[in-house]
């Protein structure tokens, strides 16, 4: 798939000496939903702020659809819409005026029909004449999305889009992101809510302490790292694992009342059938069984808990 944003060896050290980004390289593909995961202070916002022109990089290069974000900033920025993390709106303007203002600011001629549809899609139409300071936090979040989409961008950055929003808005926002993806818009969202990435993303990047430590297809990541576990409640507690079952790497729990089989999910599902047959053969009966899978959150926690690996280009799946 074609690359739409190319980030090469990007670093940012702030005036106080804090290194927010360390040699980050990343390719974002056209039309994908990319989730950038990381704990607070990991460098997510710095990364997207550099791409959007809000922060000056210390070293490195970023291109947006082939346009350098510094030398050819007009073409690069015209393609991007940004929904910031904070509810940063004017106070006294009306919804209609502020969204129309954003469209003009990004160099697009007035198109009232488009703005009307956008406000309707975001359930803002009946608030179009309301002053921004009169709106609730959720409504302000919708206004920020409308502003970001007002100039029909091809790339949308959502910085912590569902931080502090209610369930309804979160669901609406997920639907909106999918609709945008269906129209070819590339969506990059930063989040520390794993369920958000799990729900929406095509690919996931994990950033920790300014370094990108992993980029992977979400499904492949779950497959590779999201190990599964089969738990059997035994009819009779075992003292030890029978030698005949040694190759499965089984372990006992709850005083021998549970037998646990961990497998990595990469084609080992068939081994369960073999295991159950062999259990029957050695006379071990069970009253119940269930399987569990590591969530993206478990994977994330284990990744950021480990020291960041050496910087490397991580745009493509290995």
């Amino acid at each position, binding site marked *: 798939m074609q690359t739409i944003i190319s980030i090469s060896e990007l670093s940012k050290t702030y005036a106080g000496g804090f290194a927010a980004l360390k040699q980050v390289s990343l390719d974002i593909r056209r039309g994908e939903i990319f989730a950038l995961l990381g704990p607070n202070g990991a460098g997510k916002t710095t990364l997207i702020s550099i791409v959007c022109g809000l*922060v000056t990089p210390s070293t490195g290069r970023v291109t947006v659809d082939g346009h350098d974000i510094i030398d050819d*900033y007009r073409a690069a920025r015209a393609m991007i819409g940004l929904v*910031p993390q904070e509810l940063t709106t004017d106070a006294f303007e009306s919804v209609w005026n502020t969204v129309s*203002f954003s469209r003009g600011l*990004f160099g697009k001629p007035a198109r009232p029909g488009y703005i009307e549809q956008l406000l309707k899609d975001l359930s803002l139409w009946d608030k179009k004449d309301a002053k921004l300071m009169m709106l609730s936090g959720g409504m302000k979040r919708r206004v920020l999305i409308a502003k970001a989409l007002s100039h029909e961008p091809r790339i949308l950055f959502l910085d912590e889009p569902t931080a502090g929003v209610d369930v309804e808005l979160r669901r609406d926002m997920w639907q909106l992101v999918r609709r945008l993806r269906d129209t070819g818009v590339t969506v990059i969202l930063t989040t520390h809510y794993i369920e958000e990435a799990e729900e929406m993303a095509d690919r996931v990047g994990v950033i920790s302490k300014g370094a990108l430590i992993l980029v992977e297809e979400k499904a492949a990541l779950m497959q590779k790292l999201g190990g599964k576990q089969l738990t059997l409640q035994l009819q009779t507690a075992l003292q030890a694992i029978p030698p005949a079952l040694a190759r499965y790497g089984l372990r006992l729990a709850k005083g021998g009342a549970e037998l646990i089989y961990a497998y990595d999910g990469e084609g080992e599902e068939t081994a369960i059938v073999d295991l159950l047959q062999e259990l029957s053969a050695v006379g071990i009966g069970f009253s119940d069984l269930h399987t569990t899978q590591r969530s993206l959150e478990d994977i994330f926690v284990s990744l950021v808990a480990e020291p960041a690996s050496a910087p490397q280009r991580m745009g493509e799946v290995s």
Partner: protein
Amino acid sequence: MNWHAVRAIYLFEMARTRRTLLQSVLAPVISTTLYFVVFGSAIGGYIPEVEGVSYGAFIVPGLIMLSLLTQSVSNASFAIFFPKFTRSIYELLSAPVSHFEIVLSYVGAAATKSVLLSLIILATASVFVPFRIEHPLWMLFFLVLTALTFSMLGFILGIWADNFEKLQLVPLLIITPLTFLGGSFYSIDMLPPAWQTVSLLNPVVYLVSAFRWSFYGSADVAVGVSLAMALLFLAVFVAIVMWMFRTGYRLKP
């Protein structure tokens, strides 16, 4: 040029003036009217002519300049400070807009507002005192030049200030005293020689002098010198704004 952006910012700023019409227009007009009533009509009647015109007429250019300078600075400084304060400036900084376009639209809107206000005050003054304008085109030229120059200063102030106190501090402690001491209410010829020399360090003296010359044909400082000084101030302020954008001073980390 991103003309759509320039237009959007310019109209957005002008709309703010319409929303705050009382504060933006009526308040300066009323305060200037009070100056005319007190200094022009009440006290002015006891003051002999200055440079061949009645005192009431003499202070007209100075009072307009007083309003023009303070309004230009406050309009432009607030225009860029407020988005910084609300952090909505992220949108401006991430838009495909050049530094020149940002300055053109913000400073252009601030200067437009203060020029319009000055013309309203001029019309108001005509109700209270008779005056003449010998060089109307030069009068308009100096009006626009001064509005642009001090809107640029206001823009710098708005970027520099990181709280409302600082935003008020410069107009209150620097602009207003310089304007009062810059010959708005007197000719610097009326000062002792030593103070005349000190006055020449005050940039506002040149602006008031040139503006008054466009009304009555006489000036404290040669018009050419005043013009050169006004252009110099503009050039200095433009250079500072360029430096601010180039380095991202208080705009981009």
